């Protein structure tokens, strides 16, 4: 039983580390896909759209908090509401502008 648990933990940990390393490349690729030559206005507009689409499903729009608070809140909501990585970045950009 312990052996199985250890194997399971190792697999999860390996997957996490692999993902951590791989995600850096993917993140940069995603950024390039989302914002090829996108201006700040375009990103802001897209961020607002994603905010309404994701956050508005559950609650009314809050006012904007300072950037460091917003970074924490968006991370919390990413976990709580399983928001995608792309959505989180654009929402954070919109909410901190």
């Amino acid at each position, binding site marked *: 039983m312990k052996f199985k648990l250890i194997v399971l933990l190792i697999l999860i940990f390996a997957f996490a580390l692999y993902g951590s390393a791989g995600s850096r490349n993917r993140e940069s690729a995603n950024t390039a896909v989302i914002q090829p030559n996108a201006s700040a206005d375009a990103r802001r507009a897209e961020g607002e759209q994603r905010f309404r689409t994701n956050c508005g499903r559950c609650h009314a729009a809050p*006012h904007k908090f300072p950037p460091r608070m917003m970074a*924490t809140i968006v991370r919390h909501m990413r976990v709580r509401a399983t928001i995608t990585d792309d959505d989180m970045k654009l929402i954070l950009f919109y909410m901190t502008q």
Partner: protein
Amino acid sequence: MSKLRLAHVCLRLKRGRPIVNFSILAILITTGVAAFSQETQDLSERPVPILTGSAGYFTNVTAGENALVPIVMPVVLVPLGERWLVESRGRFSAEFERPKGGDGPYGGTVDKDLDYLQVDYIANPHLTITAGRFLTPFGIYNERLYPIWIRDLQVTPLIFPIGTGSSDGGMLRGGFSLNSSVNLNYAAYFSAASTVTAFESDRSTGGRVGFFFPRPRIEVGASWQKLLQEDRTQSEGVHFAWQPPSVPLNLRFEYARGHFGSGYWVEGAYRFSQIPLWNSAMRRTEFVGRMQQFFAGEVSAPSDGEYHLPHSNVQQPDFGLNYYIKDGLKASAAYGRWLGKHNYNVWSLGIAYRFAVPLGILEPQ
């Protein structure tokens, strides 16, 4: 970490229990990765610990019996590095009532609960690993709609106790785009049995999967839970949510079936923002309607705990009005009619407030 200290840790790991050792090693390595990542982040964008949450005060009248219901749900969020988050929510609530007969002062006890105390590790865009005490991922109400400043009606749905609550253990979850028109979100968990005060949980496993279509703003999903103790029963549920882009309307639906019965709730919330008359007031006003039914199973549900299922078939229509006074502050009033073995009215009137304060310096010195 110096070579000498690392060697000392490795030596101790050889002697100790393997699972504990592995966990320590995992934490050391991942913390190191997180610390390294943090060095590359601009200080002004670095997340800061926060104390947030909600507080409210309601007057509920159920079958003619008054109850004064103050509630505070503080949430502490502590981000660590770029990938870690420690989060916790407590709940202090009470139902102060008069003694039977209606005379005398209001009295009662204050319930203190720990809804979650968890560590999240955002491993990659597809996966977040959670450990600790967390909200059981079943349906959409428990995780997303439960806070009093979010819920449209203060009375929780009849089927809320099915599959929900808190669990102690580990969870894998995430959300990502399958393509440009659909996002997938998922959560899978295992919980250990616990009788420790404030950390009570059942030994169970389960999960939830959902598909979100951003353009029409529709989400459909399903949940499953298997109890790994006592009767080893299982629960299933489906959910649906739709927010039409052109109308300020929220439609939500949940169905759940468990050992003690089954039921559904369907709810619509309409914001009067499109009405030109008295627009400054109308856009802050929301009308809510909910219909729900519960079909009792052959076995009666236990009546302990804060939330419990009815013992017989019940249906309950509810209507409510919410007025958003300012950001995070809303007044709400609702009326419902319990239609079961006995019929009675359920009134609720109160106010809910969401707060958020930083626990650190916001601007770099």
